[in-house]
């Protein structure tokens, strides 16, 4: 006799495993702080590369002005200006990373909790260890 409730639980679990489950399990191997640190570090590298590309395009677009004022410009002021923009850009990028990754981690944990609950219910249905523990 088919147990519809069991089928429903197993289908839900299989769908989760096939979609978000893999990433959630990978993420769950980290503590939240460590996960966020890793992502922030990765974002630092990616953001730096993106800023370099943007700065390169900007410099190329204004190359004539740069060449004309190269000998008369205050290099320190230029470096300070670029540095300030870099810091602002990275702050925004890291803030977005922190928000997105925090939300992603918390939602993943929630989904994983639900998955474990389903697993326990399924185990209880088969008379598994968890049912003995109750």
């Amino acid at each position, binding site marked *: 006799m088919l147990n519809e409730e069991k089928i429903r639980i197993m289908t839900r679990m299989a769908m989760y495993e096939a979609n978000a489950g893999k990433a959630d399990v990978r993420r769950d191997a980290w503590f939240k702080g460590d996960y966020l640190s890793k992502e922030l570090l*990765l*974002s630092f590298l*990616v*953001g730096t*590369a*993106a800023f370099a*590309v*943007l700065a390169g*395009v900007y410099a*190329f*677009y204004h*190359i*004539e002005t740069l060449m004309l004022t190269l000998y008369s410009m205050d290099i320190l002021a230029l470096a300070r200006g670029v540095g300030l923009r870099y810091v602002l850009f990275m702050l925004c*990028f890291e803030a*977005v*990373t922190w928000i*997105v990754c925090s939300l992603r981690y918390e939602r993943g944990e929630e989904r994983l909790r639900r998955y474990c609950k389903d697993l326990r219910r399924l185990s209880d249905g088969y008379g598994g260890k968890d049912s003995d523990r109750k």
Partner: protein
Amino acid sequence: MTTLLEIRENIKRIYSRYSQYILAAAKFLLAAAAISMVGEATGYSRAVTGALPTLILALFCAVIPSGGMCAVIGAVILVQLYVLSVLALALAAVIFLLIFLLYFRFSPRDGVLIVLTPVCLRLGIPYVVPMAAGLLLSPSAALSIAFGLVVHFAISFISQNETVLSSVDSDTLVESSQTIIGGIFANPTMLVMIAAFSVCVLLVYYVRRMRVAYAWSAAIAAGAVAQLILLLIGDVIYDTNFSIALVFLGMIVSVAICSGLAFFFFNLDYSRIEQVQFEDDDYYYYVKAVPKVSLRTRERTVKTISRTMRRHDAPASRGGRGAQMQSDDDRDGYDEYEDYGDDADAYRGDGGCAEDYTVYDEEENHG
């Protein structure tokens, strides 16, 4: 309305049964449309945008994830621009690199919008994309749509200036690059559309999440009005040359499409709102429950009644309710009975010959 609900339920049933094929077909059509449009706009190499390569690439896109589809279409664009000039290739590569670095790290699943936005723009209904994204996705979809617009306007600008790009040499390299970079990133039409679409996505998202009646309809209306106002203001300030009539027409079609989406994804019956109130040890709860408009499709219950009876037990005495004896017309050695209805069970398990009867109970429930 009942007919519409029946159609909706049928479509849902068909979709749930064949969702894999329907999704693959949709991806195939989207990829084919995108590649054809790239070929139409650039068309420098038939090797990747001819009919057969388009078909093969679209088939390939149909079976890979949407992120892969973006990569394939990006590669097609790069090949086309490489044939035109290395400078065009370099500029497009920079744009794609920025999209990859800044965006795909966070939200690769919305990548399909980067392809869908230029396609809808070409069809004259780009306004449907931010409204649908606000209804069905998250605010981060605004970024995908913005990148889709950048890609579209970059390709358009490059194809309009192909003579400049194809005749670039070392003397004119800087000048041509400045023209193209300025033309792509300082395009007022593109900037106005990015602003209008981003505001629309955020507005639609927040209005449809509000706890008010007809939130989705209000969100669609708010999105359409916001887009109209921003596009008109942009046209006045930056002289973007929008055709007002086409904008209105596109907006009406977009609103119609989004209303269809709302009908499928969020159809509530606000006339039957229920307010309930209860309490537990710690709280009082004031709950408003809004029922979904749904129509259960006709359920056909098939009861197979196996009647067994001895040949000589002619049911003259038990013809009873609803059973009527007839002569053996088809000469199969048995008498025929018809219209057993709910009394048919009385004839089960008698031994002797067996006949099957089928009773159809049809019920239709309005939820």
